[in-house]
């Protein structure tokens, strides 16, 4: 197992490759182009953040990587294989608390993907689930049903469920947006703590510049209507310790400029 990770770590192949992807979806009245010719690659153990204002198609992009919709043009491939359908190798964590199954306890929820896909046996699923539940500090609640838990705890369960499965990559769609500010900060730290321990690959969508810098090691900035790549930035040096640093502030400003500066430019050009 360790050997394998080492060899893949050496030549650093692209785990996820998104190539010139244009995405469109239909509402009852309109055909909406969500992203236009977006391309990027995610490497193993990267915390890749897609950042952009609402309407930049970032969630749609994540759905396409999840296999829930096919690109109109361009290709998305994982491990060199084109993505055609949803699959547990790309485990999704959603923003909504409804992602947990209310009829299953915490333990059963965490076990479910492992059992449903038969990736792990009964005993191993149980053991992996228990250790991951302990890891996210929910040991006391493993027999509780989701409706008894707070928002933050539900998000921990969702995280544990995705992590215990050990997918090729985690897809997180604004996972902490529905939490209160304190809990959100706690969960961001939790996620980074887990990453320090397991070094998984995560594709993370957010509209918060601060969250992008804190959580991400690499940030893809999208411009809206339709979503197009604006920049790809490195944030691997910036974490919770650097929140007050000048570098953090400078990057925040730079992203802010990328996101909102262009609007002013466009207006100025228009005049």
């Amino acid at each position, binding site marked *: 197992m360790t050997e394998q990770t080492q060899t893949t770590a050496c030549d650093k192949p692209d785990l996820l490759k998104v190539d010139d992807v244009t995405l469109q979806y239909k509402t009852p009245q309109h055909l909406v182009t969500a992203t236009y010719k977006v391309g990027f690659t995610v490497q193993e153990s990267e915390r890749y953040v897609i950042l952009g204002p609402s309407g930049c198609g970032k969630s749609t992009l994540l759905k396409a990587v999840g296999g829930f919709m096919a690109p109109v043009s361009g290709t998305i491939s994982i491990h060199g294989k084109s993505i055609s359908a949803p699959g547990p190798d790309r485990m999704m964590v959603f923003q909504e608390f409804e992602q947990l199954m209310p*009829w299953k306890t915490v333990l059963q929820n965490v076990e479910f993907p492992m059992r449903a896909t038969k990736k792990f046996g009964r005993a191993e699923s149980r053991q992996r689930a228990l250790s991951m539940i302990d890891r996210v500090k929910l040991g006391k609640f493993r027999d509780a049903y989701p409706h008894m838990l707070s928002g933050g705890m539900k998000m921990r369960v969702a995280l544990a469920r995705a992590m215990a499965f050990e997918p090729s990559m985690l897809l997180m769609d604004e996972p902490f947006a529905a939490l209160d500010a304190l809990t959100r900060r706690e969960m961001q730290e939790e996620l980074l703590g887990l990453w320090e321990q397991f070094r998984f690959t995560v594709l993370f969508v957010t509209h918060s510049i601060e969250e992008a810098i804190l959580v991400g090691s690499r940030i893809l900035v999208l411009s809206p209507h339709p979503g197009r790549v604006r920049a790809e930035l490195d944030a691997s040096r910036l974490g919770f310790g650097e929140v007050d640093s000048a570098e953090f502030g400078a990057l925040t400003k730079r992203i802010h400029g990328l996101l909102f500066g262009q609007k002013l430019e466009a207006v100025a050009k228009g005049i």
Partner: protein
Amino acid sequence: MSGASLDTRTPQSRAPQPRPEFEREPIDASGVGDVERPLGFVERLTNNDAVRRLAILLVLGLIWELYARWIDNPLILPTLGATLTTFFGDLMNGVLIDRVATSLRSLLLGYFSGIFLAALFTTVAVSTRIGSDVLATLTAMFNPVPAIALLPLALIWFGLGTPSLVFVIVHSVLWAVALNTLTGFRSVPETLRMSGRNYGLQGIRYVALILIPAAFPSILTGLKIGWAFAWRTLIAAELVFGVSSRSGGLGWYIFEARSELETDRVFAGLLAVILIGLIVEAVIFRFIERRTVLRWGMQR
């Protein structure tokens, strides 16, 4: 600007007075006693639904008994005591049990056939758009038709006896269950569907592991409504043509008692109808609810 004039209403003059900040240890709360204390016995007793309802039942029974004694006409209104005596008498000699068994046999046959058909219909309806249109149209047409109105047709097609009963019961169950199940499936949150598909679940496994449990509150409502419809339909149908079938059910028992002018037996039959309805509702369905939707917090 300086706020010197008295009736100035500028925002500046409404700014709060500056106050000193402070920090301190929380005050001693031992005076409160236990933070969480059990309620008193009487309060807990009156908070119990069963106790309150039983009390209402006792009062109603008392009113019945007193009123029946006052009008003193067993042909119109027998006393509660006389009704209970007949009820237990017929229960002991097996007549009532026999009647109930006959009724329940057709009922269960019709009920489960109805559920099976409803499952079939909804499966087609969730998987194709035309199927869902067909179900919506059929339901809109047939749901308002009282099952008993189809009885004449049933008699022409199936003749007297169980098949006709089953036909009308299926009609009364099918649409209620199908409609509720479809509504339930439709209201399963998109996130839950997506996470189910994320695990690679498809087809029957997706329906069984995600859709059915997620829609269970609606499905259970459908089953309860279907049961109530079926039970009413059955008794009504038996009252209409139980007369000429060989072994009648509970409806026939009531009908027979009426023609013999044994009003206490009519009441005993009605009591049996009520009791069975209550038992199914308050024991069986309540039990399922407590083990499922209530425990899961999907219903309060």
